[in-house]
């Protein structure tokens, strides 16, 4: 048992993508958890006297148009990014898995209706669709994440559907059927466990997109509202003052790229480790 564990650890250790991504994410998570200790100032504390301070010993990343410490804001922004990843990831997962399982398992009209819906959300550009959803349910971070998730679940549904279709007729599912298991139990206890590795991979590959889309909507002014330390919002404000204080747009952007890049690497690494067949895609 412990030997197997050792082997797994060794496999992970060998996979450079996974390790680097893991370390990056770990650092982001730690920063988010200990934000209270790391950030030297309160992220919302305004100080009109210190407007547009250049990065210095006092203000590592400078200050913004209201004299707020940029470093503290970037640090607190990591919480938002991770919250977005968590909420968006789970929402997409739940919708996508439910729809995909239903499509693959029941077939017939359920499949047709739901597949049509997946195709619909698939062929219309995500940002536009998300914009439409935000229009409907209103501005705000959580709403934005919901909007993005309502758009992004389609790729999960497709994969789950395809996998379910191929698993449905496998002997062990037939056996379960013969034992009189209910449809629900067949789906959850027989089919789902076999999809989990690919799901983990999909989630990690999709998370950077989710974070990016949400930040984009925040940038457009539809997501997080001031005084939230959201990175997208910060960059948006930064561009307004770009000739005066370029650091306002640079540092939040760096943080964002760092995080998404970490997720990307982790996803690629996980894919190699868990689902080598997907590599060809």
């Amino acid at each position: 048992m412990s030997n197997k564990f050792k082997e797994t650890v060794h496999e992970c250790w060998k996979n450079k993508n996974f390790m680097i991504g893991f370390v990056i994410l770990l650092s982001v998570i730690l920063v988010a958890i200990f934000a209270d200790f790391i950030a030297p100032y309160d992220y919302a504390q305004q100080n009109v006297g210190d407007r547009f301070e250049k990065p210095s010993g006092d203000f590592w990343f400078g200050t913004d148009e209201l004299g707020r410490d940029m470093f503290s804001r970037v640090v607190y922004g990591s919480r938002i990014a991770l919250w977005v990843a968590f909420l968006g990831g789970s929402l997409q997962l739940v919708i996508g898995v439910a729809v995909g399982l239903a499509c693959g398992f029941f077939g017939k009209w359920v499949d047709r209706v739901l597949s049509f819906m997946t195709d619909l959300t698939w062929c219309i550009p995500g940002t536009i669709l998300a914009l439409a959803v935000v229009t409907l349910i209103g501005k705000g971070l959580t709403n934005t994440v919901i909007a993005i998730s309502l758009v992004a679940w389609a790729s999960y549904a497709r994969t789950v559907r395809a996998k379910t279709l191929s698993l449905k007729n496998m002997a062990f599912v037939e056996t379960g059927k013969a034992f009189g298991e209910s449809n629900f139990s067949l789906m959850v206890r027989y089919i789902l466990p076999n999809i989990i590795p690919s799901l983990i991979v999909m989630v990690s590959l999709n998370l950077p997109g989710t974070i990016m889309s949400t930040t984009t909507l925040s940038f457009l002014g539809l997501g997080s509202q001031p005084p939230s330390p959201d990175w997208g919002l910060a960059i948006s404000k930064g561009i307004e003052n770009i000739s005066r204080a370029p650091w306002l747009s640079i540092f939040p952007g760096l943080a964002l790229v760092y995080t998404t890049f970490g997720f990307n690497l982790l996803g690629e690494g996980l894919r190699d480790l868990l689902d080598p067949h997907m590599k060809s895609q």
Partner: protein
Amino acid sequence: MVLVICVSFLVFSLMYMMPGDPVDMVVDRKVSLERKAEIAHELGYDQPFFTQYKNWVKGVIHGDFGRSTRYKSDVWDLMGARIPYSLKLCGWSLVIELLIALPLGLLCAMKKDGFFDRFTVNFSLLMTAVPAFWLGALFILLFAVKLGWLPISGYSGIKNYILPVATTVLSGMGGTLRITKTEVLEVFNEKYVTTAYAKGLPKRTVMIKHVLRNALVLVTTLVFMSIPWLISGAVVIEKIFGLPGMGNLLLNSIIVQDMPVVQAVLLLIAILTVICNLISDIVMGILDPRIRVSLSGGDN
């Protein structure tokens, strides 16, 4: 076609399901309730949902998208003034992106695992982690603020389009490049390429007549499918660089909840998406005889 109807329905439902009274958007809040009801009646907001939908569709078919509640002007005129900006941005971006990404993708496939391939792939991987809006910001910082070569924002001349187009191209290129590379690699492994070599055809002929010709089918689809994405990307780009295009219009209208405009723009994009899909199907049919059969078979 079904798609267009569905989308138009969804788009319209959007407005109907909007929280708040649409009349509030039109008039001052202090107006009396009676006056409000009167305006609602004038605008047809008091009628049942399907009647409203019917009227709206009727108008759209006749080219009448209604009137903007904010600008108090015809939505069609409003869009007409914006479309050229977006068209210029998207058109140039698409052309330049393809001119760069397709040859590079091909090169990467041919020299797979070479230095250039690894460099390009890693670079495009990095670019996928860089959001377009931040890239735009960096460009402004470098070329407009520090070097002063190009204007920060505005829409007076060709110089104003250089940065927006560059941003769009760079942030979209990675994907196109990688897909081109995979497609070409896939064709490389096809048996008929081996057959072509076995026939004694020189490498150049095999590359052009067999590999490229077949990869073209898939790349064409890619091009047409990418147009809607380009347009959605334009929302962000137009916001960064202050281009008064459709994306900006959509965004501002969403923020002030100018429903007729939002509906019209969304519908336009949806129709464009459907048209692009259709064209890509047709072009594929022309390029690939196998699909021609299934198309004329009427199955699809």
